């Protein structure tokens, strides 16, 4: 399992394109927002929590098809499915690898991009905390979406349609924590709700994703 994680990480690092692409997308999205909204710093500060969360979510979404698609094409997913490790564990490791290569860089980059959007000083800590707690949920939910569309020829757009509604609770609580943090309100409730969603997604979705992969490989 650890080997699998290493393999996925090395592949993501060496195969090129994958690792920095999500970050680049995040940067461009945040750069484009002031062009659409106008450079008024108060207005930007007001929407910064939502934009940063949305950007992280979309950057995550765009890299989801990498989780299984390549392995499905070259047949290594068949090998993994017949290997003497539980497929659920394989899915969990792949989701974890996706989080390390996409979610974690986003967590680190988000505060820097927060400066561009004039995010309130009080909100930085909460931005990092919610992204740290919330992005694993994005990876695990995304792994389920990727698993369900893995055998399809044009799965990309369909996967967005399936995965984005599943992201709604995470997004709501994540942006809510940052918004409350910016205003100096109490944040414990949404933070705990978000942590619960992440924990639930990590615990349950690998089973659903593994079931979907078994069906797709049948």
């Amino acid at each position: 399992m650890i080997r699998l994680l290493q393999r996925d990480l090395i592949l993501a690092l060496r195969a090129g394109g994958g690792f920095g692409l999500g970050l680049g997308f995040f940067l461009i999205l945040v750069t484009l927002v002031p062009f659409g909204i106008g450079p008024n710093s108060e207005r930007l500060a007001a929407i910064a929590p939502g934009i940063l969360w949305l950007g992280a979510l979309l950057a995550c979404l765009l890299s989801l098809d990498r989780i299984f698609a390549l392995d499905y094409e070259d047949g290594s997913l068949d090998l993994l499915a017949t290997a003497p490790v539980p497929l659920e564990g394989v899915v969990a490791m792949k989701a974890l690898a996706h989080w390390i290569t996409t979610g974690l860089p986003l967590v680190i980059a988000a505060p820097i991009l927060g400066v561009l959007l004039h995010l309130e000083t009080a909100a930085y800590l909460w931005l990092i905390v919610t992204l740290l707690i919330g992005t694993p949920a994005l990876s695990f939910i995304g792994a389920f979406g990727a698993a369900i569309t893995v055998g399809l020829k044009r799965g990309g757009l369909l996967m967005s349609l399936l995965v984005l509604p599943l992201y709604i609770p995470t997004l709501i609580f994540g942006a809510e924590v940052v918004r409350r943090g910016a205003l100096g309100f109490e944040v414990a409730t949404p933070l705990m709700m978000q942590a619960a969603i992440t924990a639930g997604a990590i615990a349950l979705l690998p089973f659903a994703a593994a079931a979907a992969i078994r069906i797709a490989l049948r």
Partner: protein
Amino acid sequence: MASLWEWANPHKFMTWTAKALPIISIAAAVVTVIGLIWGFFFTPDDYRQGATIKIFYIHVPTAMIAINAWLMMLIASLIWLIRRHHVSVLAAKAAAPVGLIMTLIALATGAIWGKPMWGTYWEWDPRLTSFLILFLFYLGYLALWEAIEDPDTAADLTSVLCLVGSVFALLSRYAVNFWNQGLHQGASLSLDKQENVADVFWYPALVALFGFVLMFVALVLLRTRTEIRKRRVHAIELRERVQG
């Protein structure tokens, strides 16, 4: 021993629905028309809402069916995953477009009612938002059915999606509650509450609701029959290709 599951045998299903469908359809038409005519023409206008109360007779039944259609799909998907009854998953597939349209009607009638009453067609109110989210879930479910060619794979994957989707739809429902306070009034038809709408509006609404439920059953049966026939045609085509 006759078991409940025998009714799900495709052949038996086709036989009994062939007899039941016309009866249910006619009953649905009659009850819906009675409920709506009663509601539209034989009830007084509400003292605050005026004639806009009439839209309530369409809005509430469609909204309830929109939610319960998903519940029915969830149960049918579970039955398919556990007991592999083809009719069950086809019924889930058949219910999805009906639920989608009901969601759309509920949203549209709500918007039409909302303009004179709340002064806006759309507000990011928890109930409205969660209905929009439900609409998205229906869209995703249907899109997944369309995208997969192999019928059994499609049935399995959509069922799994339906299960996971149900959990997330519920989560979203309560997350949305948390996110914004609402304009929408509480449930207007519930059995356990003292504060229901006045009886004048309540009885025709119940009749209309019953009519819409019958209509939903009739539509789902009809669409399931179509799906079964489609499967049979598909099977015949495959057989001919093998022979010819």
